[in-house]
Every structure is written in C-alpha cells, then in structure tokens.
C-alpha cells in the first residue's frame, strides 16, 4: 500500500469536559465549527496530514472525554501518545485550576519524552474571561510548555498550535527522521499541498454564540 505521508504521529487532547476539545479538533481537521453541546463519550479520533519542515506528517489526533467516569478508558491512550494538548477554558477558572491534575496524569501514564502544549480555548469569549492571558503564560512556563490562547469559533491560533506541537514531536524524533528529509524533498507533492492550503477558511461569525 503506497503511503501518502512520511511519518505518523499520535497526538492526544485532554482537559475538563466542555472546554472545547472536540471543537478544536473539528476546526483543525475539517475547518468547520459546530456550536454543539454534545459531550464526547469515551474516545474518538480524526486524521490529518500536514507538512512540517519539508516532511509530510500524518497526525492521528485522539479526542477524549473529559468527564470523570470515562477516565479509565481514556488513560489507556496516554501510553501511545507522542504529543499532548492540555486544554482549559478561559471563561472557566475551574478548568484552569484542573490543569494541574491533568499534568499529573500525563506524568503518570504518558511516555517519558512526550511533548506537551498548554491551550487556553474560547479566547473569543472576552466578556466572560476568568483566566488572564498572563496566568496561562505563567502556568505554561512553570511546566515548560508552549502556550496558545485559541478560539475554535473564530479559528484563532488553531493551525498554529497544532503545527507547533507537531514540530515539537518532530524535533524529539529528529535523529530517526534525518535520513527521510532528502527523500521527502524529492517526493514532495507540491500541487497537493497548494490545493490543501488554498482551502477557503470558514467565515468567522463573531456574532454567533459559541458553546465551546
């Protein structure tokens, strides 16, 4: 079977229920936004191929249920994760405080060298903000993570944050991939990438009430 990518990475989304993990994923993979309040139960995933530093990376992104009763199931996926998004909601002080618990789970269940990034979602909800940008920045610094405030609703920092985590994972596996760079350059499918990048961004409907 002819592969369409050079390398596969598995990323994991974790965080409290309702912070918008599924919406982030939909915005990134399908460039669509659904103001839905359907809770994820168990685990789901989506696939997307992006190019980073000339290497075509196929990323499988696991979306987990934030509710307590599904933790037994979701923990099984930490072991296989290469990169992890820790997500909180800027309009929920509680979800920000719970990042500490999520970090603890990562330390316990994820591999030693797993890459992590902190996400403050729903940045468009300025009126309801409870967590300042500086707080997020500070927390990320303490844990040695990169930090992004995002909005799945307005498509803010979505591509940036996902690309960044992929870069981090890529760097961690640099040695394994050095030999692939030369070959990848020769096999680059420019038309396909141009077509992908040319995809129209969904209109940002700022007046629409966001649920995630």
């Amino acid at each position, binding site marked *: 079977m002819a592969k369409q990518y050079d390398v596969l990475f598995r990323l994991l989304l974790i965080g409290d229920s309702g912070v918008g993990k599924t919406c982030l994923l939909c915005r990134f993979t399908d460039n669509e936004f659904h103001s839905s309040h359907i809770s994820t139960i168990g685990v789901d995933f989506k696939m997307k191929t992006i190019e980073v530093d000339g290497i075509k990376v196929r990323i499988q992104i696991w979306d987990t249920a934030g509710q307590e009763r599904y933790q037994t199931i979701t923990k099984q996926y930490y072991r*296989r994760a290469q990169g992890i998004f820790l997500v909180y909601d800027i309009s929920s002080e509680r979800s920000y405080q719970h990042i500490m618990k999520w970090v603890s789970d990562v330390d316990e269940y994820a591999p030693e060298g797993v890459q992590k990034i902190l996400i403050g979602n729903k940045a468009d909800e300025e009126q309801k903000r409870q967590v300042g940008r500086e707080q997020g920045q500070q927390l990320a610094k303490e844990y040695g993570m990169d930090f992004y405030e995002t909005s799945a609703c307005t498509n803010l920092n979505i591509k940036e944050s996902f690309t960044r985590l992929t870069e981090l994972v890529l760097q961690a596996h640099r040695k394994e991939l050095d030999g692939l760079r030369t070959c990848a350059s020769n096999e680059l499918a420019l038309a396909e990438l141009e077509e992908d990048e040319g995809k129209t961004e969904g209109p940002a409907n700022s007046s629409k009430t966001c649920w995630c």
Partner: protein
Amino acid sequence: MAESGEALGTVPEHERILQEIESTDTACVGPTLRSVYDGQPNAHKKFMEKLDACIRNHDKEIEKMCNFHHQGFVDAITELLKVRADAEKLKVQVTDTNRRFQDAGKEVIEQTEDIIRCRIQQRNITTVVEKLQLCLPVLEMYSKLKEQMSMQRYYSALKTMEQLENVYFPRVSQYRFCQLMMDTLPKLREDIKDISMSDLKDFLESIRKHSDKIGETAMKQAQQQKSFSIAVQKQTNMRFGKNMHVNNDRTLEEKSDIILKHTLEEEAENDEEVLTVQDLVDFSPVYRCSHIYSALGDEETFENYYRKQRKKQARLVLQPQSSVHETVDGYRRYFTQIVGFFVVEDHILHVTQGLVTRAYTDELWNMALSKIIAVLRAHSSYCTDPDLVLELKNLIVIFADTLQGYGFSVNRLFDLLFEIRDQYNETLLKKWAGIFRDIFEEDNYSPIPIGSEEEYKMVISKFPFQDPDLEKQSFPKKFPMSQSVPLIYIQVKEFIYASLKFSESLHRSSTEIDDMLRKSTNLLLTRILSSCLLNLIRKPHIGLTELVQIIINTTHLEQACKYLEDFITNITNISQETVHTTRLYGLSTFKDARHAAEGEIYTKLNQKIDEFVQLADYDWTMAESDGRASGYLMDLINFLRSIFQVFTHLPGKVAQTACMSACQHLSTSLMQMLLDSELKQISMGAVQQFNLDVIQCELFASSEPVPGFQGDTLQLAFIDLRQLLDLFMVWDWSTYLADYGQPASKYLRVNPHAALTLLEKMKDTSKKNNIFAQFRKNDRDRQKLIETVVKQLRGLVTGMSQHM
C-alpha cells in the same frame, strides 16, 4: 171643330195660370209665366185678353165698394179736421214741456254719464279680477316649484310640474307668460335628472368609502352571534357531557362559564355601539333618485346606471392590493370591503322596488365569489406562516357566515377552506420541520439527568415514560432518552392542536375531524419527522454518541405513539368505541429511523477501522517478526474495546450487530491488504508478523466485548484469515490439496484463488534468494515444492472457473 176644340182646351189652362199668379209668391211667378210662352204660339195674346177682362171685373168691384163706404169716409175727414187744432195746441205744450225737461234733466244726464263710466270701470275691474283669479294659482304653483327646486325637493317639484301641465296651464294657455313657463319645464326636468344623478354618484362614492366600516360592523356582529352560540353550546355540552373527570369537568366548566360571561358582557357593551347600515350611510339619495326617475318614466336608465356603477365598484372591491397576502390586516380589509358592498346591495334590495333584484344580486355575488376564490387561492399560496393561514381561515369563516346571514350562498367558500386547510397543514409541516431541526440541533444526546423528585415529575408530565425500576432508583438518576424525546412528543401534540384549530367552525363532524387529524399527524411523522431524523442521522459530522442515543430515543418515541392516538381521540371528543379508519403510522417512521441509525453506526465504525488500517506499516520483506503485534492494530483494538465499553446502553441486538459488523470489516480489510495486487512480495517473516496481529483480533473477539454472543460466533469473523495463515505457517499443502472439496476439510474456508495469490507472492520472494538457495538443499527443495503447489492451485482455480 178643330178650332173650337183648341180654344176650349186653352181657356182652363190660362185660368189655372192666373190662379197660380194670384196665389204664388212673386219669386216663383217666373216658371209660371214661362209656361205661358212655352205653349201654343198665340197663347200669350189670348192670355192678355183674359187678363184685361179679369182687370175690368176687379175695377167694377172696387167702384161698388167705394160707393158703399163714401159717406163714412167723409165723416172721418171732418173729425180729423177738428183734431188738427187740438193737436197743434198739444204740440206747443209738449215742446215747452220737453224744453223744461231738457233744462231740468241736464244735471241728471251728467250724473248718468258718471254712473255709466263707473259701471264700465266696475265691469273692467270684475273682468280683471276674474282673469287674475285664473292666473294667480298658476303663478303660485310656479313659485312653489321654484321653491321646491331650491330646497332640493325634486320629487315634489316633479309632482308640481305635473299639476301645472295637466291642470293649471290649460286654463291660461292663451297668455304669453304661460307659454314662457311651459318652455322652462323640460329644462327643469333635465336639471332634476342631472342633480339626482349627481346625488346618486355622491351616494355611490359614499358607500364605497364606508364599505370598510359597514363590512367591519357586519362581520363583528356575525362573530359575536357565533361566539354567543358557541358559548351556549359548550355550556349545554358540559351539562350532558360524558367521560369527564372531576378535575377536567370543573376546569372546563369554569372556562365555559367565563366564556359565556365574557360574551354576555361584550354583548352588553356592544349594544350601545351596534350600528346598522342605515346609521353608517344615508340611503335617501337612492330613494329620491329612484322616485324621481320613476316619476320621469325613466326607471330603466336609473337602474342601468346604478347596476353598471355598482358592478364597476364590485370589480374594484374584488381587486386586492398586491401586498394583501402579507398580513392578516390586508385580508381583513379585503373582506370587509366586500361584505360592505353586499350588505348595501342587500339593503337596497329590500327597501326599493325593482332597483335591484334577487337575481341581479345573486348574479353579482356569483361573479364576486368566483373572483374572491381565485384571489384567495392565488394569494394564500404565498402564505408561509401557519398562524397567518389560520387567521385567514378564521376571517373566511366569519366572512362566509356574515354573508350567509344576508342570504348569499357560501358553499364554495367552504370548499375553498378545505383547500386552504391542506395548505395550512403544509405550512404547519414546514414550520414543524424547522422546530424538529432546532430540537435536534439543541440536543446534547445524553440521557436526561434527574436530581430530584420534582425534576422527575417534570419530565413524566411531558412524556409518557413508564419504568418501575427507574422509578424506584434513588436520586440522582437518568432517563434513558435524551431531552429531544419529550420535546418532540410535546411538539407533535402542539402540531395536532394547531391542525385542529383550522377545523373549528368548518361544520365538520368529530369523526371527520379525527380522521383528518390522524392523516395530518401521519404526514408529520412519516414525512417531516422521518426526514428530519434521516437528515440528522446522515449528517457528515454526527458521532457514534449521537447515533446510539438516537436509537434509544426512537425506541421510546415509538412506544409513545399509542398515547398520541389516545390524545387525538380525546381532543376530538369521539366515542372510544369508534373504529378509526386511519391509524398512526409513526411506528414505521421510528423503525426506519432506527434502522438508518444502526446502519450509520456500522458505517462510521467501519470508517474508523479503515482509518486505522490505512496506518498499517508492515515491512513485507522482513526476515523475522519482532514478536509483538503491530502498533496500529493494538490502537485499533483498544479503540473498538473503548467504543463497546462506553455504549453499554446500546440495545443488545444493535451492539451485537455493530460488533459483528466491525469484526467482519476488519477481517475483510486485513485479507484485502494481504492479497493486494500492488503488494508484490511477502516474506515468511511478514506472514508471521501479520499472524500476530490476527491473533490480537481473535483475542478481542473471544473477550466478549459485547454481551450476548453465543460461543465462538464472533470469532467466526476471522476464520478465513485464520485458516489461510495456518495453511501457510504450517505449510500443510498436502493436506489442503488432498482434502479440497471435502466438508470435513481442515482448510475448508481457504479459497484456492487466495492461496494461489499469496503463494505466488512468496515464490517471488524465494526467487530473490536464488543465489543463496543454490547452496542449500532445503531451500532448493522448498522452491520445487512451491512450484508444484502453484501448478496444482492453478489447476484448482481453472477448474473453479470452468465450473462457474
């Protein structure tokens, strides 16, 4: 003798002639004398002789007589001479007397002349008075005529003119002024005609302006009458109603009383304001004009003009404004104008003689009705708001009832209402499609959490859910369905109410209404709700979570359908024993939706499996397996395990089918991967690695991820792969070939074509190592065996082809 005879004959003749001359008037003597000359030639000579003889006789007689009276004559003369002297005296006396009379009478004569002049004057005066007495009435009548004209009492003026012409003018027709007067009458008549017509035009304009008010008033009165009748009827029904619960009975009775009370109050209030058409419009111009034209003998002109103008007005009234369909007020104005028009016609029909006839108004109404129906049919098709359609229907009912009260036929309007009802139901269906979409959009597809008894009762009051086990559980607990279920149920009932509203006032039996409601509800369930569910299920981004919940939801909605039937039966008040010709078909809707959701679950699950399989990263030429299953496959197995762990509330059959479908799909995908024509070479090491993965699949299948499977049922999904891999790993070709086609064959499920395909991939691998093979006897023997088996398998495949 001859002469003697002739003479004798002539004598009597001449004597006769002489007698005639003496006795006949002188005027007639001619003919007599002429007869003398007409006779014998010498007759007149003889006649003359006779005549002379007659004369002499007469003279003698005269002398005798004179002699006899001579003495008397003389005496007389003597007497006369005496009188002469006396007469002369008398003459002088008379003359003197006369002179004295003359002198004395001069004054008398003078006075007499005065008297004569006076009498002449008196006679003249009398004559003048007589003449004037003839003329004065004429002048008075004419003056009266002028006054009547100035006071606009034209009918009276016409009567006056008639009297003048027939009674007064003949008496004084010889006078000039009379002629002048007579000459002015025709013009006055024309003036009266023109003025009356002008009044009529003003009247027509007036009723056109007031049509709105007239119609509005009439429709309000009809509506009040109906409200009152309905209230009374409800009261009566309540008294004798059956199957009424105590609470319902009291509530409905109280409501009915309130309605009746309010209706009576309204009636009382409006009594002061009730206006008749006469209060709104002055009809006197019509009456006057009618009388005037009748008096002038020109009724036909008047009638024709009136009817023509009213037909024009009717066409104007019947032509709606282009925006009439946008609001109910547009329709109301349209209807009130029409009602106003026909109320006026009805009034005129009853108060005039022949100006309009029932045939005329009926003809006008039929024309109007066709136009109205065409307008309503066209404009109502633009209505997309069911509330507007409902208000339109109410308006049409009031409109129809109002005109029916005035004697116009309205059956066709009620026929139209059934068309509008169908359209109303269409707009309802569209509206409810939107409502259902919104409900599904807002649902979170999670079981409804209940934290207290109040919350529990709240849900139970909206949706007829019955589960003793759930009822006994302690709080917090959950209903199995998500929040869309009670909302859908409530909205279906709201739809039924809305659909029922249209049938009010349409004079249909309860059975008929019940039947119609069931048909409407069937359309809602089988077309609208079904469509919404299917669209929801086929949404690209719908997740397994939603699909599972939808299956559970549709199960509960299906069970609730029987309560909807009871609901319809109750609100139409028909007997419980009535056999319904129409049943609710919602059951099939929910079954179909459930099947679609189940199918979609299988589809999405298989799509997830495909995405994992695409991540497969086998090194097909590896020398040895690394002893562990592939990472992608372990992720896949974990994913499936997670899915079925989470969906514990999925109905058993669905979970089993989903699990079986997933395993079969996974098995098929792995087999296709192995037999892929683009895959050219496979090493035994790769086969061993592949086998490790299949073992993981079998472990998953045997771990009973979903309860309810019998024995090894689930593992059967992988049996084809298992036997194929066993054949190759054990290299048991002699057994396979020997037992081929036997029911008891160990490798019964190995397809020769598959075996051949895979073996050829391995043969190619062996060829690659020919250099080394030359140095190892075992490898050479293996190669020969492969060639032999390949040939035999080809034979089997060929045989299969021929057989097919």
